[in-house]
């Protein structure tokens, strides 16, 4: 068994420098690597390019990095619900590349799986296809999209073992599995880190081969963006 455990978030982020490209898991505020984001803020690394479906809210998630102006460019599919983001984007301080959500997921998967490029119908005929190669297959038009290239992937899982195996919970899974092994170094933070042999090999969502470093995170806030409930009758 190859041990991927590191003792804390500082060691997990060793090697992070300015101008790097990062992938960060999560959908909205669900399944975001809270500990890694806090440490990125503490380290103060700047001019980051962040690949993440969303950009957090003003005071949580990637919003924390935006406040400190650590992000040079965001590659996302949806960036609503974040005033500071909108301000930086409209003022031109922040570079933003918006791409379809399925394309974002698959460009991560392509990087994970060694595919240089693939064809997808999403965005054909829209401005996201501008400057991109398009092609017809059986009467339908597709856009050629390429694998991402990035330095670090930061993902958040529910449980993990020291071999790097990961299990996600509910919809906090989202982009996290797709980003594992899609960067030079993948850092997984988990709510519970267990010894190898504890997790059922049949129920691993992401095998440890896609993870270089794993640590047990602390103080998960797991903030809820839209608390919707019904009343008990």
């Amino acid at each position: 068994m190859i041990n991927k455990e590191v003792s804390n978030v500082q060691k997990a982020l060793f090697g992070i420098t300015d101008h790097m490209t990062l992938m960060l898991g999560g959908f909205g505020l669900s399944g975001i690597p809270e500990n890694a984001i806090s440490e990125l803020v503490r380290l103060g690394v700047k001019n980051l390019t962040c690949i993440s479906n969303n950009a957090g809210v003003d005071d949580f998630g990637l919003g924390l990095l935006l406040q400190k102006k650590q992000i040079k460019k965001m590659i996302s599919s949806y960036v609503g619900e974040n005033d500071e983001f909108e301000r930086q984007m409209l003022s031109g301080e922040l570079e933003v590349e918006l791409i379809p959500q399925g394309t974002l997921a698959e460009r991560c998967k392509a990087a994970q799986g060694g595919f240089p490029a693939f064809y997808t119908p999403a965005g054909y005929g829209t401005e996201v296809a501008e400057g991109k190669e398009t092609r017809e297959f059986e009467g339908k038009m597709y856009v050629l999209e390429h694998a991402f290239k990035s330095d670090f992937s930061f993902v958040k899982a529910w449980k993990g073992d020291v071999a790097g195996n990961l299990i996600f919970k509910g919809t906090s899974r989202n982009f996290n599995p797709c980003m594992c092994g899609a960067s030079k170094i993948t850092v997984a933070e988990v709510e519970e880190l267990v010894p190898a042999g504890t997790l059922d090999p049949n129920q691993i969502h992401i095998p440890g081969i896609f993870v270089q470093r794993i640590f047990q995170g602390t103080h998960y806030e797991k903030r809820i963006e839209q608390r919707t409930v019904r009343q008990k009758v």
Partner: protein
Amino acid sequence: MLDKIGIAKRLAKELKDGYYVNLGIGIPTLVANYVPEGIAVEFQSENGVLGMGPFPFEGEEDADVINAGKQTITTLAGASFFDSALSFSMIRGKHVHLTILGAMEVAENGDIANWKIPGKMVKGMGGAMDLVASAENIIVAMMHTNKNGESKLLKRCTLPLTGVGCIKKIVTNLAVLEVTSNGFKLLEKAPGVSVDDIKKATEGTLLVEGDIPEIVF
């Protein structure tokens, strides 16, 4: 004229037994409350859940179980969770039978715009571009006109497109319309709304053939 709930109720009539359905944010989300009796449908949310149920009871919210609108949800028996890549494989692979989503503009050629107002509002397309590029059966749910009273059913979209020639049907507060090669074909009118009202609120070509029935739920 229909309110949002009326639009949702009319949309619910488009559900068929055995359908997997993706509902967009806003009015489309309400459709889940009006599934006709006796049919089985499952709701997919592109952030990674199939078999969505109602909102949780107070105190039972789970930050790890949300829908694409970031709302806390529950799941029903037979539900499953999965990652974003597999989720869009369901969508791109046409396993999802029906997509209902909102729009800022729809054109009579089936184009849709719903993700960007240049220089003003740039929220992003989320999963909408994948949905409209893939699904065979896409219905737009929206108000017939915008806040300034301008028609949202146009000859050509003025905003950046989300998808080209993909919209088949539109349900608004005024009418149900089908996108045909000759323009918007009026299928049904809302209670208390005349064909003239609809004509005035529609910038694109409106085709009116014969008597137009009133929407029934």
